[in-house]
């Protein structure tokens, strides 16, 4: 593991750099003989996975860190063969059911049953249960979530589930109530800067404080991104200078460009050009909700106060509708068109007042 993100990932609950109270609580939770299912949620790059791995190490010792990758095969009721990659140790198995799209229900049912029905071989091990880690639970289909809720109770004796989600708003209440929910908030900018300093020290580099703050700011409070940006800027230019260019993910720049385009001119022709850019973003696999958020952020920055509220409410509405539909490009373009219409009307009105 040579990327800083992986190399300097804390492995012990006590060595975490922030949310230390939470770490202590988790440790005490594990030290009791039993613990309930967990639902860990928080924004991307906040350290959910890190905490969970620390927790596993706390539970089973270093054996939980010996990971192997396996491909598992399932057959859907419609006789379709699906396969899914899993990461497992002797004590736990981690899977991302959304990899198989709408067949995630089958994966959850079969996998959890498989794991739960076999007892721990090594009885000398401390715990009687295994752990199943499910990633991106908020993207599971409703079917899969419903399948999960009964299995959670049924096999509670032999396995514990740790669910990871970005937000619990799309996790059905039945699952929420069956789990102990743990929120992992994003680190503050100063916390991020602190972590950057620590990592650079470990690497034997000197990081100017201003640069650390700049990185922290542009990282969107995402520690993973911050570390990657730091490493990237190190590769670009080493002895660090306070005002050196910090590489940003290209898609962020692209979204900003798109928003600027919409601001520069409001016409059907421009809308067509914006559409091409939106297509490009979708092609690169940027989730449409991220595009929505990015656009809104950039558009609102250059708006009059009276418009801001209007545009934000429209964005929320359009984003919600988009989740009901299949073609995000329609909704994205509709939002841009709406913004253009509002903006143009506002401009004309204000110009009309001038004359």
């Amino acid at each position, binding site marked *: 593991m040579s990327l800083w993100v992986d190399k300097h990932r804390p492995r012990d609950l006590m060595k975490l750099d922030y949310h230390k109270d939470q770490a202590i609580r988790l440790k005490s939770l594990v030290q009791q003989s039993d613990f309930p299912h967990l639902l860990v949620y928080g924004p991307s790059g906040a350290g959910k996975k890190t905490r969970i791995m620390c927790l596993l190490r706390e539970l089973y010792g270093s054996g939980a860190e010996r990971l192997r990758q396996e491909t598992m095969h399932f057959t859907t009721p419609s006789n379709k063969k699906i396969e899914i990659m899993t990461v497992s140790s002797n004590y736990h198995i981690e899977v991302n059911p959304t990899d198989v799209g709408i067949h995630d229900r089958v994966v959850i049912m079969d996998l959890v049953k498989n794991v739960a029905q076999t007892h721990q071989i090594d009885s000398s091990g401390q715990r009687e249960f295994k752990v199943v880690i499910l990633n991106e639970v908020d993207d599971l289909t409703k079917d899969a979530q419903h399948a999960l809720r009964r299995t959670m109770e049924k096999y509670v004796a032999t396995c514990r589930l740790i669910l990871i989600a*970005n937000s619990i708003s799309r996790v059905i209440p039945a699952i929420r109530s069956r789990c102990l929910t743990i929120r992992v908030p994003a680190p503050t900018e100063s916390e991020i800067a602190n972590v950057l300093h620590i990592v650079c020290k470990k690497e034997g580099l000197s990081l100017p404080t201003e640069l650390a703050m700049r990185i922290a700011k542009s990282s969107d409070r995402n520690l993973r991104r911050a570390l990657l940006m730091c490493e990237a800027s190190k590769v670009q230019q080493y002895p660090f200078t306070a005002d050196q260019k910090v*590489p940003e993910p290209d898609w962020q720049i692209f979204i900003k460009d798109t928003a600027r385009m919409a601001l520069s001119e409001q016409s059907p022709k421009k*809308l067509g050009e914006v559409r091409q850019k939106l297509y490009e973003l979708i092609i690169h696999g940027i989730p449409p909700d991220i595009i929505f958020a990015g656009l809104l952020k950039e558009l609102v920055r250059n708006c009059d106060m009276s418009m801001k509220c209007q545009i934000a409410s429209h964005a929320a509405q359009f984003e919600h509708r988009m989740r009901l*539909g299949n073609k995000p490009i329609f909704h994205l373009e509709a939002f841009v068109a709406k913004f253009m219409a509002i903006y143009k009307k506002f401009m004309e009105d204000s110009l009309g007042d001038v004359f």
Partner: protein
Amino acid sequence: MGDYPDPDEEYELMYSDELELLRDMDGNTESNPIRKKLQTAKRSLDFSSPVAKKIVSNERRNSNTASNNSTDGSFSLTPSLQHLDDILPSSNGPNKRTVEDLFGDINDIDFDNIQLPSKKQKTEEECDMELIDKIIEGRRQRQLLTEPSARGIVNTGPNYVVKENLTTSVPKWPFIPLKNSNGDRIYVRLVCEDLWEDSLDKVTNQLSLQTTYASVWEEARKIIEAKKQETESTELSHETGIKDNVVDELWVEKYRPKSYVDLLSEEPVNRALLHWLHLWDKVVFKKDVKTKEPHQRIAFSKRTGQFQMSNNWKGKKENEPELDEDGRPHHKVALLCGPPGVGKTTLAHLLARLAGYRPVEINASDERSTEAFQTALQSATLMQSVLDAERRPNCLILDEIDGAPIQTVELLVKWCTASAKKEEGKKKNKTQPLKRPVIAICNDLYATSLRPLRLVSLIVSVGSTSAARLAARLTRVSRAEHVRVTARALGALAARARGDVRTALHLLAFLKARDRETINVEDVENAAIGTKDSTTSMMQALQAIFTINDSEPTSILKTIQAAGEYDRIVEGIFENYLTARVDSRLLIACETTTWLRLYDIVSSWTQRTQNYSLYSLLPLCIARCHSLLASRQQLKVKFPMQAQEMSRRRAELESAVAAVRAARVDVSRRALRLDLLPLLPYVLSPTLRSANIQLCSETERKSLRACAGAMCDFGLQYSQQRTPEGLYAFLLEPDVYKVAFFGSEERLRPPPAVRQAIAREQQLEIIRRNENMMNRMCSKNSSSEAKQKTDKQTITKDVKTELPNHLQRLQPKVIEKPTRVSVSFIYTN
């Protein structure tokens, strides 16, 4: 004027071959000489018999007036016989008298009913005698049949036989002796008066013209009555749906074109296909037809070549050679395409038969897997029918080919394109080139499975029949079927069928079944059935959406529903709506997208829940867009491509992401896309002052190593590949640069030298990692087994016990690096 042939002549000249062929065909159909004679015989009978009757009756009247009543039948007979005897010796020799000479026109005798003697068993004389007897007999029967009035005479004949009433010798019956003008004595019979009266009555009754006339009238009326009843009853039966209808042929079958002139399809179409069929003649009929025919036909094809110069009904094909080096036509397959019901199958069958082939049809009802198809192809194109009397070659007709699986079509194409020269072997038998014409028929020319076939085939598109032609044909049919239809109704019918002959005929049959007297326009228009479920293409619908239709403003919904593919239509709207109308304030755009969004939500809801209750909303959304976007100016609608293009490119990049993810499953996909992959390329392009690693500084080497490590972590690799320019280049696989950047990736790619260095470093890194792994395993085993023993010993022992025999030669390699064990062990912990 002199230089140019007048139109008629020119037509003759142009179509002389076809005309000739048509004449041939006519000759063929009436080739049976016996039948021909019979036909003419019947005709002569029909027309001449009343005249003959009249003559007979005239003669009778004359004889009545001339001589006494008693001898009228006998006198009329004797002179004619005498007359015959007078003529015969003068004209022909007595030996050479033919049947006809003897008996006059024998055509009135129905030879079918008379059994002709078998000539083998009897001598010629006997034969002749027998024939004479037969003819006499036959004629008598004929007379009985045709002239019932004469029956009386014949039946009551015995009393009046001439020989028995008049004799020159003294008879045995009562008589009166008389003397004739020559002074010879003759004896006339005396008959009882009662009997005489009786017979006279009978004769007069039967001979009276009035009564016969009346009876004939009666008979005629009866026949007419019966016919009327019959038609009425059939009408009734139509109405009540009695089985009579089933016994009748369907009109579609009944009025299927039976000759070239009957065809309803356009003349150029027919001619194009016929011409193509004739191009095969050189190959097909070369051996079979030894007489002038093949020669003629080759000349024919040459001649048409000349004609093409002056007549441009075939336009572009002038320059193209029509025959390839094997003497086969350039296109091996004719692909007939057109909407259903215009007569493609009929056309193919008819023309194949017309050109002298035996049509062999394979359609969707037959099995069309590749094996079955191959056997069918072979049997149809290589073999010849034994049963067919005229030994005509086969012509393969592949009906409904657009439904065939793509492999089948590919097989057909391969089969067709195999030339005689190239013997690209088909395992056992050397591929025989296709030597028989193949006609494929399809509805949808642009079906994906037909793509390979389209390139090699002559495409003949059969357009839908024009309404006027269809109406004319319908008039003929209705006349033949005694259906009273107004001309306008037929016109409406034809318009309604939209060129589909089949539908039109069915509809006509349906209308006839109703009990109305005449079929009016209203009937046609009010008939709830028979509206053809017309299919408009997606592009037509799209065009309709963007244009205002003044004549039928409400038809847009129907058009959309007819086109069906809502998703594609919506994509088309989405790609075209911005240019449709002047919309500076973007209000129309907002409104349109609102409806498109609604469409999206409804359709995905429908798909998700499989609940189609809201499905009918979808065309309404589209129709609403029409009301927003339609304009009078003609918009050039673009075919919706963007969405497909997008999904294609997306899948491309997706595969790169998936490849990376296969190496790093523990990172969620979202994090990989948003954080890791966009920033990874920066880490992967270290700045080196020189490509030579040995000259690099320590920090540079470190960063190079970090880069290689990252590449190993994410399963990336530089692989050497040949570029189109012929140079070798190191390309990253999977290409994360493409995923990470929006068009600016080339700027950031490391230079080739650095790439090479990275690739080398990565190889080293992989080796290093494997070593680490191996050492860790070994050291662990050693620690668990026995701590007293030295490392060296345990390792050797371990290797000995662990490794299977075939791997034992790896042994020394492991032993050689005992020092590294401790180092790496410490490093990893």
